């Protein structure tokens, strides 16, 4: 068990196409299944409403972090997201947040996308995350022990 999730996927599409699908708010909304109010702007809050069947009542809220063209798109979001109804204001600032990063690279077949979501150990702000990074080696090693234990003794 780690405090982050990493996914790699090869997309048979040019990097410029993938970049647009990630960062154009309407295109993002298509595949992510969220109706966003407006374009992504670094440092600003992105708001919208999920369109995923069964989750239409869920509000989307994220803070866009970085947009480095055709390289990196990242945002933080309250996680676990409160399944708040749209007409119910919720103070997301009280929620722990995780960092979602999409990194792109050109490969022979098109584009490699690496997604990471990290900071599940993040309690208040980024101090926990920093602590985790500093202790990464030890943490990972120890988690293997725990994982083995939990896996063998359900």
């Amino acid at each position: 068990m780690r405090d982050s999730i990493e996914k790699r996927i090869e997309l048979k599409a040019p990097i410029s196409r993938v970049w647009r699908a990630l960062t154009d708010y309407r295109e993002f909304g298509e595949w992510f299944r969220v109706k966003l109010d407006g374009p992504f702007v670094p440092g600003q809050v992105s708001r919208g409403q999920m369109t995923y069947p069964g989750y239409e009542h869920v509000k989307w809220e994220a803070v866009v972090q970085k947009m480095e063209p055709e390289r990196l798109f990242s945002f933080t979001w309250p996680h676990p997201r409160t399944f708040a109804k749209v007409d119910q204001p919720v103070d997301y600032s009280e929620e722990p947040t995780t960092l979602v990063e999409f990194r792109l690279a050109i490969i022979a077949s098109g584009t490699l996308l690496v997604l990471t979501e990290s900071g599940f150990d993040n309690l208040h702000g980024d101090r926990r995350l920093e602590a985790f990074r500093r202790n990464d080696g030890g943490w990972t090693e120890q988690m293997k022990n725990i994982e083995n234990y939990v896996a063998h003794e359900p």
Partner: protein
Amino acid sequence: MAAKRRTRVLVFAALGDPTRLSLVAKLCRGQPRSISQLTERSKLTRQAITKHLRVLESAGIVHSVHAGRESLFEFDPQPIAEVREYLGFVSQQWDQALLRLKSFVED
């Protein structure tokens, strides 16, 4: 729901410390141990170890049981199993979203 969320955060926070992880590593072998046993071969004082054990206890990762005059601490795998399950759920959501992205850009 709120309580569960809180627990999850506590579990990650509790595990985000090398001393507490080493305590968990010792305790997860199954044998309940006393504070003295857990302090042995540690550079930390008994008080410091006790403080860390209380953090683990508040996340439900360890429980204290009384054995005569001593408190023994034992490992409870449940909270860590729940966190693993939660990460598995998030991971699955991403798998699905990325497949939708794949068909979106490859069409």
